[in-house]
């Protein structure tokens, strides 16, 4: 059921007010008319009663004059009688005009009674006047009851008229009272209803205002959002189920062009060529956006896309399904970046690093070989100082070689081109080989390796060379910072599907603020014991890259003065 609209309420309130006004006017008119009528009626009744009273008095006078004449035969009495007869006739014909029709008949009957008496009385008078003899009491007696009867009827009439008048008056009063009550109550009720209507209307108006404000704000927010969407340098689209575009920002339009509206868009998309990162051609159905239609969220997929007549571009794409209230996927929101230039730069960097490092190796080969041969025989360079200088040159040369190797590795890790050759390897063996590889360094630093690998550890799936490299990096790191005479512990254990290889030194440890930075490139932290440092600053970054490429992770626990413990978590085979 629909609630009455705001306009309906306001219109209803005004209609009610108009109706009330009309009703009030009608009532006022009615009350005025009733009052006027009641007044007129009262006046008429008063007049009737007055005249009837006069009639009564006239009759009495007539009777008195008649009797006087009968007794005295005085002319004056006769004249009085005659005068009263005129008066009576005037009243008798005047009263009926004042009477209501229903009372008129009654009055006529009374008049007949009076007439009976008067005729009788007149006859008696005439007889007396003619015969000049006294009237017998009998004759007079005949007139008396008639007169009495007429007077009685008259007084009864007066009573009835009074009753009628008072009844009519009461009636009029009652009607007026009712009308007045309505006159008072109707505006009250009307006002209450109107107030309620207007109050709710007011609430409605406020709500409507709030809605209007909210709408205006929404429109502004939407415009802002659209402006932002249109200015971001990322492509943003909403792809409908029929492959048409529901939204396409400016960047997307530059990358995709404008597909035709409706289902014809499918052919448009089919005219593009898509490849994955390995160069395999992708059908339209294999695109990440289609996975989003299946309800999956797609994050950071890299594909190559070529629009007909345009150079191919590499895009990094994320897509998420958009659902209706039933949860059905109705469209897909997708955002993508043109990373063609980035990938090109990556390749250029990689190529550059590769070329530079290989070019550096050629002269290094000559320098290192020469120095090694020079130092091979003590007789060739007998002077200890000279030998020492050559030795420094050789060590620096070795370090340079390590740096070049590490830079190459970092470059490979960053490009995702480590090209691992994983197989099931025994952890104990790898740990042993790693320890042997760093053994000479440990001896130089007067350190002891304590290898604690329990038997029965599960194998891990790893590229053995890279796994070894990861552990060697941790060991050389520990050797660099462990104080002379201390022990570096290498332990291994199994924990929830992972084999953890931990390398613990008794060195100065790492400040809490620095812990998160140890795996960053070229981060040789300012540790007090950097005397034997001289690393490349890349070892831990490489270890982290190698382990993560294997699906594992590296953790570090340390506190200043308490040594450091690095743990490799490699997925068990």
């Amino acid at each position, binding site marked *: 059921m629909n609630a009455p609209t705001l306009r309906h309420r306001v219109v209803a309130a005004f209609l009610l007010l108009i109706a009330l006004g009309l009703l009030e006017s009608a009532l006022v008119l009615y009350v005025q008319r009733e009052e006027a009528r009641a007044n007129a009626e009262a006046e008429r009744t008063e007049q009737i009663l007055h005249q009837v009273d006069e009639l009564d008095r006239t009759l009495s006078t007539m009777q008195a004059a008649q009797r006087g004449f009968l007794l005295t035969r005085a002319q004056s009495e006769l004249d009085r009688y005659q005068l009263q007869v005129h008066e009576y006739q005037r009243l008798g014909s005047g009263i009926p005009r004042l009477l209501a029709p229903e009372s008129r008949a009654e009055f006529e009957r009374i008049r007949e009674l009076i007439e009976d008496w008067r005729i009788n009385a007149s006859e008696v008078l005439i007889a007396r006047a003619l015969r000049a003899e006294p009237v017998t009491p009998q004759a007079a007696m005949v007139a008396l009851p008639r007169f009495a009867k007429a007077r009685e009827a008259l007084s009864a009439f007066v009573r009835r008229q009074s009753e009628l008048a008072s009844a009519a008056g009461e009636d009029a009063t009652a009607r007026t009272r009712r009308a007045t009550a309505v006159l008072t109550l109707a505006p009250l009720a009307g006002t209450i209803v109107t107030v309620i209507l207007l109050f709710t209307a007011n609430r409605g108006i406020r709500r409507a205002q709030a809605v209007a404000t909210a709408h205006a704000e929404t429109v502004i927010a939407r415009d802002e959002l659209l402006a932002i969407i249109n200015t971001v340098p990322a492509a943003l689209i909403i792809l409908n189920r029929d492959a048409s575009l529901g939204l396409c920002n400016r960047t997307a339009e530059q990358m995709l062009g404008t597909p035709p509206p409706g289902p014809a868009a499918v052919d448009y998309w089919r005219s593009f060529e898509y490849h994955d990162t390995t160069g395999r051609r992708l059908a339209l159905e294999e695109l990440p956006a289609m996975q989003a239609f299946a309800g999956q969220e797609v994050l950071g997929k890299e594909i190559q896309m070529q629009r007909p007549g345009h150079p191919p571009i590499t895009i990094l794409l994320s897509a998420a399904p958009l659902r209706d209230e039933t949860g059905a996927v109705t469209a897909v929101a997708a955002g993508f970046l043109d990373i063609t230039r980035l990938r090109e730069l990556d390749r250029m960097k990689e190529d550059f690093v590769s070329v530079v490092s290989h070019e550096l190796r050629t002269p290094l080969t*000559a320098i290192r070989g020469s120095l090694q041969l020079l130092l*091979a025989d003590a007789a060739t360079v007998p002077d200890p100082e000279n030998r020492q200088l050559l030795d420094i040159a050789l060590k620096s040369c070795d370090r340079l070689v390590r740096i070049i190797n590490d830079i190459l590795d970092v470059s490979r890790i960053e490009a995702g081109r480590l090209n691992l050759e994983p197989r099931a390897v025994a952890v104990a063996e790898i740990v042993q080989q790693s320890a042997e590889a760093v053994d000479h360094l440990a001896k130089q630093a007067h350190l002891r390796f304590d290898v604690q690998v329990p038997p029965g550890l599960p194998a891990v799936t790893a590229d053995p060379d890279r796994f070894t490299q990861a552990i060697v990096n941790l060991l050389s790191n520990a050797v660099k910072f462990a104080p002379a005479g201390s022990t570096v512990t290498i332990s291994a254990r199994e924990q929830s599907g992972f084999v953890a290889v931990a390398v613990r030194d008794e060195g100065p440890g790492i400040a809490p603020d620095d812990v998160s930075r140890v795996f960053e490139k070229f981060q040789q932290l300012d540790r007090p014991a950097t005397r034997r440092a001289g690393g490349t600053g890349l070892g831990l970054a490489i270890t982290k890259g190698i382990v993560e490429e294997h699906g594992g992770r590296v953790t570090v626990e340390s506190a200043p003065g308490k040594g450091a413990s690095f743990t490799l978590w490699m997925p068990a085979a």
Partner: protein
Amino acid sequence: MKLLLVEDDPDIQLVACLALARGGFIVRAVDSGEAALRLVEADPPAVILLDWMMPDMEGPEVCRRLKQNPVTGTIPVIFMTARAEQAEIARGLAVGAAGFIRKPFDALALGAQVREMLGAS
């Protein structure tokens, strides 16, 4: 044991010659693949140490030609390269390489390294 060293960089050639001589090899050095191919039939060495990157003919091509020739095909070829990545190793093995020595090599251990590879192949 006679060894043919094919290396275009004269400095590295000299260092490698000295290192290999220390390792007990009788070394003959040339600076190009073509020179190596010319020489190898007349005076077949026991092992050939071949640089990968050379201006006129790349190491793998030299190796491929050596392996094609029945006279020289049996001589073990060891690549000496600054670029020993998986792709190169695969390519080297495909043309019949017996091993790889990565530059910069250890001058004091070079001879031993070569001998080890010969023993293994």
